[in-house]
């Protein structure tokens, strides 16, 4: 008969092992010794790791601390009302992204090829400045909409990011859009290094 499994050893030391397997543990010296050692360790651990009882005053003090900390939290309302503000903010953000996202991407400046004339470069620069200004305004709208958004609430409401969603979105971008995405990422990385 097979030796006891880890799960069965636990049942053995806790006295809940079924009779046939307990009979094996009696007959098999290896299982019997292992079981006895486990039991000794369990007793040793149980005997020597008491938690010192804090002062009786501690509990009142503790409850008061929790009360003070909880008093600074809003009442946790349940149901739909609880996540409605977050939902509204998230929905507004989603609508804003859908509405202005393509505009941001399509209006992104086109990379200037080598040999481009000065006049052409100047036009591009002006377009780029205008795009930056527009992007800033759009960005302000988006950040304002997202300011009250609790990510946990959005996630609890089933609005979290789906696996591979970013990969799929990136695969759908055009070359220009990918260039602009790269520029924005470089810009953000540069900012985080400052």
């Amino acid at each position, binding site marked *: 008969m097979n030796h006891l499994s880890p799960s069965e050893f636990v049942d053995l030391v806790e006295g809940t092992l079924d009779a046939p397997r307990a009979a094996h543990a009696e007959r098999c010296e290896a299982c019997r010794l292992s079981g006895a050692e486990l039991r000794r360790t369990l007793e*040793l*651990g149980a005997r020597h790791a008491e938690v010192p009882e804090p002062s009786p005053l501690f509990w009142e003090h503790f409850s008061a*601390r929790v009360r003070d*900390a909880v008093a600074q939290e809003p009442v946790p309302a349940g149901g739909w009302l609880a996540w409605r503000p977050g939902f509204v903010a998230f929905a507004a953000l989603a609508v804003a992204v859908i509405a202005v996202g393509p505009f941001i991407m399509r209006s992104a400046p086109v990379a200037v090829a080598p040999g481009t004339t000065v006049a052409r470069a100047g036009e591009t620069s002006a377009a780029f400045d205008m795009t930056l200004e527009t992007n800033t305004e759009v960005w302000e709208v988006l950040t304002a909409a997202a300011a009250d958004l609790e990510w946990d609430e959005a996630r609890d409401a089933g609005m979290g990011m789906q696996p591979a969603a970013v990969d799929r979105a990136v695969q759908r971008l055009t070359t220009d859009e990918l260039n602009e995405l790269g520029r924005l990422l470089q810009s953000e990385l540069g900012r985080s290094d400052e």
Partner: protein
Amino acid sequence: MHTRAWPWTSQTQSVHNVTVTNPTDSDLVAAAREGSREAFDVIVERHRRQVYQLCYRFVGNHEDASDLAQDVFVRAFKGLRTFKGDAALATWLYRIAVNVSLNKVSAKAPHPESLDAFERQGDARLASRDESASDAVLREERATQVRAAIARLPKKQRATLILRTYHDLPHEQIAGILGSSVGAVKANFFHALNNLKKLLS
């Protein structure tokens, strides 16, 4: 939102305008969700010792354990609306306590209270009345070794050992707390005991 007054006392509470003697945890959770901070006070009073002791077993010192236990109750209050009630409130609180404790011990190596600190506190409560002072010292030294050995166990083994051995929770409840199967809990318990034996030998 509509709120009610909740005149809580230690024995008799009013829930949904009906006076209830010894309200259940579910009654208290329902009242706390409706805005009764007094109901939440009763929840804290009811579960604070177990939560504190669980946290203590992870961090091994009073200061961190009391901070963690406070954090557990604040998180519980904030998450009351997500508590579905399909598990016991105690199980849910234990789950939060295990998570915050494991996060804490991951971020910072545990530093169990030293023997000196123990002696400075003059806390002789651990020693039985007929135990000599030297026996008490040896006993506390051994306890410190056991706590240090437990602190070196892998996370899930440590959590399983603590919940099973010191809080006497059934394997099924531990499985619910740790998000594991009963078989995995038993296997973790077995490996925890084996590793503890090696660490103490």
